[in-house]
């Protein structure tokens, strides 16, 4: 039981399974494969944005501009598509725009030394403003069929984008666990001064984190644009806060150096699933936010209590051990 409680991923997965079972008992329709696939499908945007955000949080930073970055990338995608660009080129342009937006955050944080929350709060305003300036404030509609097509592809009854996101998740999980360069994110977040003294490229690691956050936000933009088929001016509004909440839920610590991609993805899935479950339980959608907030608070509070209890136990064990050794 103890190792289970120690891992936030396990705690949240348990909670998720519990909620699914309870919802299923009230409404058996919830157990149908279709509804499960639907939840996965709906969670993709948040999963992708949260994965990007994870890199930043691992380095002990914060990025509150990822939602706006996704919005901006979606506008670039929509605009280039309507200019007649082929899907591949438009998608590349969107990814480039997102990456560039991330790199601008990175530049401000690492080289201008602006505190991350200030830098990204500033760019949040800038990117949202740019979005509306590019489009003149109107939605981008009448997108070509070619962008909506990938959303319809499926394999074994599971949509293409779900596979794609799973593949990305697996890749990220493997890289952060096994590739030396990716371990730098953890080292820098856990102990920046220590990482510096070890000769790690601290600034460039932080730079990479913010840039990746932008890239992932752009990928999310491509997915949701394909899913809904138009770009609204409120696209991905508020996702920056949801992505942070997803990471915290999934055990990525804001104090840096702790967390896994799988955790971040589970957190994002959880937040999306809450929305679907409320619908299946017949609770109006306006209660979404309230539930998300309460769950976040409960999880971090329980986590805190568990950690304190474990710490106390560890100390007591040490005192007993020391006393024994001295006698």
């Amino acid at each position, binding site marked *: 039981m103890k190792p289970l409680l120690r891992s936030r991923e396990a705690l949240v997965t348990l909670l998720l399974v519990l909620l699914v079972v309870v919802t299923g008992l009230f409404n058996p329709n919830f157990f149908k494969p279709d509804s499960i696939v639907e939840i996965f499908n709906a969670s993709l945007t948040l999963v992708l944005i949260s994965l990007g955000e994870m890199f930043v949080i691992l380095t002990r930073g914060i990025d509150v501009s990822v939602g706006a970055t996704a919005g901006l990338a979606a506008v670039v995608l929509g605009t280039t598509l309507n200019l007649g660009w082929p899907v591949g080129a438009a998608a590349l342009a969107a990814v480039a725009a997102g990456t560039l937006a991330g790199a601008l955050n990175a530049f401000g944080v690492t080289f201008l030394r602006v505190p991350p929350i*200030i830098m990204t*709060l500033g760019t949040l305003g800038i990117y949202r403003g740019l979005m*509306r300036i590019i489009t003149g404030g109107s939605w981008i509609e009448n997108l070509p069929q070619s962008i909506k097509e990938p959303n319809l592809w499926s394999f074994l009854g599971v949509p293409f984008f779900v596979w794609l996101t799973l593949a990305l998740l697996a890749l990220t999980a493997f890289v952060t666990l096994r590739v030396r360069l990716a371990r730098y994110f953890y080292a820098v977040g856990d102990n920046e001064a220590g990482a510096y003294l070890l000769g790690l490229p601290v600034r460039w690691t932080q730079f990479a984190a913010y840039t990746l956050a932008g890239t992932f936000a752009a990928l999310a933009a491509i997915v949701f644009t394909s899913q809904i088929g138009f770009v609204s001016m409120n696209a991905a509004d508020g996702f920056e806060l949801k992505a942070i909440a997803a990471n915290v839920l999934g055990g990525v610590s804001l104090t840096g150096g702790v967390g896994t991609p799988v955790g971040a993805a589970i957190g994002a899935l959880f937040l999306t699933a809450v929305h679907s479950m409320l619908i299946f339980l017949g609770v*109006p959608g*306006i209660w979404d936010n*309230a539930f998300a907030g309460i769950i976040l*608070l409960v999880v971090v509070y329980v986590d805190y209590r568990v950690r304190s209890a474990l710490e106390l136990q560890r100390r007591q064990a040490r005192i007993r051990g020391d006393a024994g050794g001295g006698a």
Partner: protein
Amino acid sequence: MKWTRYLRSWEFALFVLLLLELAVLGLVNPVFFNLENLLYSTLDFTHILFAALPLTLVIITAGIDISGVSVMGLASITLGLVWVAGVNVFVALAVALLVGVLAGAFNGFFVSRTDVNPLVITLGTLFMFAGLAQGMPALLDKLGFKAYGSAGLAAYQYEGITGLPDAFIALTEGSLGVVPYPFLAVLFFALVLSLLLHKTRFGRYLYLIGVNPKAAAYSGVPIRRVLVWAYVLSGFGAALAGVMLTSYFTSARADLGGDALLPIITAVVLGGADILGGSGTILGTLLAGMILGFLRQGLLALGVTNDLIQVVVGSLLILAMAAKQLLHVYGEYRLKRKALSSKDGR
């Protein structure tokens, strides 16, 4: 010697910047030289000041409270619902402020009792308070209590709770001479908070907690109580902002103030508060908030669109911070050089 210190302070720089800004705006558009117009235009941003002023105290303790934007909506909808229930509107106003205090106490409780980052906690309550504000009217409707006024639920969703009494609307329409009541209230609020921050033990504790919480704990500062009060004040300020907006827009809505987060934090940070804690003043926040508010008004008057203003404000925030950081680095460098050369001299 002593008075030159004031001339070199960040607040003085902000004051000069404010005067310069008003002069430039006035030259471009003479409307800004009309004192009555100028003061009247503060109505568009007093809610930012109400929320930003007490947030300064929280940021000084190295904390943050982003739930204020939701507290605004929650206070507004509370006021509306209590009034619809048949209670005098000023009693409803008091209840709304009480809700703000309770919301702040809730934040303060979690922040002071756990080691969880305040950003996470107030992020949770940001969602929770917004959800409560959005859900309450529909819930009351389900319970058979017609909570949204005579116009029906559909009308409520469109325009909020309307038809509030004139006496309540007069709170923002009225003025003392040329100074609108809300601006007067902001100045009074700033004065009280300023005295609290700079002239009381509580205020000194806030700085100490922000600079070094361990030292504060070892010197017997009641950290938990001080933190709770800081967040309570922040909740109260946000509720004041919500009430003010309700009167100004003549309707109680759950989504009031949703887009105020960026300007609120910009005002505090531009005002000189360090997001890492330990520094900041009420006067700085007040001046920075006014600079930003008038800048917005001025740009709007020049025909600049809201979208571009967002870009300008965002850039300004980043540039101001970058300049401050670079000056700081340069200052450290100079100090080191000085230390080195004085060593050589000996």
